[in-house]
């Protein structure tokens, strides 16, 4: 953005006469830049606002009152109904609750958003921890360890970046489905292992949902390797002379120095895992993460009544909240750590 500003300013300064024009030019550039920024901001934030407005409306009223920028028949009950697990209510309470639901024009599905959110948190956390851990180790190996065939192996890893993810969908599904141990392995009875005899393998398990991303993605390795290469060799050599072996050097020197890109990578990975739909939809039909649950909710709307827009938007809003909270919490930290590692 600052680039636009300065180039505008210089352009103005060149055409305009002397000092007065110069300050005028800068102001003009500023205004244009801010204006553009404002337009982009409104364009990207308006849908979010509209979702919130719908979530705070009576579902019957939004159909009739479409031009209203404010929520028609304002209510916060939609949040309550989406967050409530109706199966925990007594029959009387439940009937009472259903009545309130129909008052705001919602449908009577027991949404219980907590369970898919917890599933999403578990899956995204497992993926993030695994991916950051393993990718940083292999990125370090590719950046610093000397072994035969290193470059060839790295090229092979990178070429995986070129494969569209959709190609891997079915093979991954088959792999995960067949990921089950035979009850007997080399005649040792493994029947006591919880997953040994399961016929569905890892489909609809946390392990299965995390599996394709747990060990690595080519991007993460590439991203971190570039950073590790940039870390001064001397610092590592200093650690060698201080007596540190490979593990210490990696965990106590390299990793902390790479805190900024690792934070960034973790954030990106978490958001991606949270937002992923296709894989959990395919491999986790009986273990819904939030994206899949939202889809189910949309699909379940009975044909007789109108779509439950308020409920859907409320759930969508809640689904996005953890990500927003993450950015609010860690965004500052990422910026800080980037500044921190910028020093020598």
């Amino acid at each position, binding site marked *: 953005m600052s680039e636009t500003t300065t180039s505008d300013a210089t352009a103005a300064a060149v055409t305009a006469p002397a000092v007065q024009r110069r300050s005028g030019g800068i102001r003009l550039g500023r205004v244009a830049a801010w204006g553009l920024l404002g337009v982009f901001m409104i364009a990207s934030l308006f849908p979010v606002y509209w979702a919130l407005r719908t979530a705070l409306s009576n579902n019957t009223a939004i159909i009739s009152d479409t031009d209203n920028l404010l929520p028609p028949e304002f209510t916060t009950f939609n949040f309550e109904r989406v967050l409530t697990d109706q199966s925990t209510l007594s029959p009387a309470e439940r009937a009472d609750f259903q009545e309130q639901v129909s008052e705001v024009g919602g449908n009577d599905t027991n949404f219980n958003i907590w369970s898919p959110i917890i599933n999403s948190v578990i899956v995204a956390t497992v993926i993030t921890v695994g991916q950051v851990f393993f990718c940083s180790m292999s990125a370090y190996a590719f950046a610093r360890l000397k072994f035969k065939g290193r470059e060839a192996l790295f090229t092979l890893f990178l070429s995986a970046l070129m494969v569209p993810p959709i190609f891997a969908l079915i093979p991954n599904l088959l792999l995960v489905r067949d990921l089950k141990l035979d009850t007997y392995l080399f005649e040792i009875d493994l029947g006591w292992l919880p997953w040994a005899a399961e016929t569905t393998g890892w489909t609809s398990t946390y392990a299965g949902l995390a599996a394709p991303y747990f060990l690595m993605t080519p991007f993460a390795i590439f991203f971190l390797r570039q950073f590790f290469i940039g870390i001064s060799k*001397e*610092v590592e050599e*200093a*650690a060698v*002379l*201080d007596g*540190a*072996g490979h593990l210490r050097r990696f965990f106590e020197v390299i990793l*902390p120095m790479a805190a900024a890109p690792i934070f960034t990578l973790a954030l990106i990975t978490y958001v991606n895992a949270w937002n992923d739909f296709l894989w959990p939809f395919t491999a986790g039909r009986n273990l819904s993460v939030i994206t899949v649950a939202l889809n189910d909710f949309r699909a379940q709307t009975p044909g007789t009544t109108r779509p439950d827009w308020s409920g859907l938007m409320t759930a969508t809003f809640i689904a996005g909240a953890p990500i927003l909270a993450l950015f609010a919490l860690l965004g500052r930290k990422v910026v800080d750590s980037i500044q921190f590692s910028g020093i020598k």
Partner: protein
Amino acid sequence: MSYVSLRGLTKVYAGSDEPAVDGLSLDINEGEFVVFVGPSGCGKSTALRMVAGLESITKGGLHIADEEMTNVSPQNRDIAMVFQNYALYPHMSVGKNMAYPLKIAGVSKAEIAERVQSTAKVLQLEEYLDRKPGNLSGGQRQRVAMGRALIRSPKVFLMDEPLSNLDAKLRVYMRTEIARIQQDLGITTIYVTHDQVEAMTMGDRVVVLKDGVLQQADTPANLYSNPANMFVAGFIGSPAMNLFEGSVSNLDGEVAVHLGPNTVPVPAAVLAAHPSLPDKVGQTIAVGVRPDDMYDAALAPQYEARITGTPVLLESLGSEIVTHLDIGVRPMDSTDPDMEDLTGGDDDAHAVVARFSPHSTVKQGQPIEVSIDTNRLHFFDIATGNKI
């Protein structure tokens, strides 16, 4: 018995057929401060890194405190090193940086705290122990790097151009600081620099390297007054020694060297020190005269050898007048590549340089009588470069 012993250390980097260090042999005594000096690319860092174990040794052997260390991993050599860019851990405080080697060595918390305190005291870092290296000045970072190296009292202390990132004033200060600390602690030290002033002022012994080959290892005074070859003669001393092509004559035992139109008699004492000089009669040799051994004849009549020169450039420094003279014969190239860099290969820059007393009345363009202290002449074989 020497403490650190380099025995024909040789390094050939992969993908190169020229050795970066070639057959370096040197015995270093316990507590000695040895400086490696030489022009850029001469293999100083490579030699140091072989001692540290950061580079493998292609050929030759290394012994430290009577132990074979040639193939021992760097962690197990009990060596500490200070790097040019300090190489501090940016995420650790000053105190943690210094404590790190002790922590790895498994020293108890109480002892670590105590040693950090005492090391910080020696290095005047006490008030900075909680700061991150990023918030320190260059000189302070330098001291932290030294603290981290010194804290575990290593057998050998290595430094690779540790002062080159500091400004001139701080460099002079840290130079004396390092020398003082080294003396106080008595740690055997190898120090790499390309700055000959650092080398001469700090080292008990200075090792001059060129193209990976040891040229001379000697005390600073000997290196200056008795250089082993033309390279050392030209490299040590600033302004550099003047080297001329000259011929030797012997008239009834009166040996003299002829520098262009000038004849300089060689006194008997000098002949005694260079007994093979008379054998060179009729041959061309290299004759070296240091700028400090040339005087304005009016002010130093005690030296009888005279040549005449025309000053082409005067640099009055207050304490002395550095005089560039045309004496009718062109000085030779000392083959010091750094010199080449300085002059940009410009031959006209090779005037004879003399350091005159500030009382001299020398004037640019006015020919002047120059007297030479003939007791301090240097003679070299042009073919081999070695002293005669």
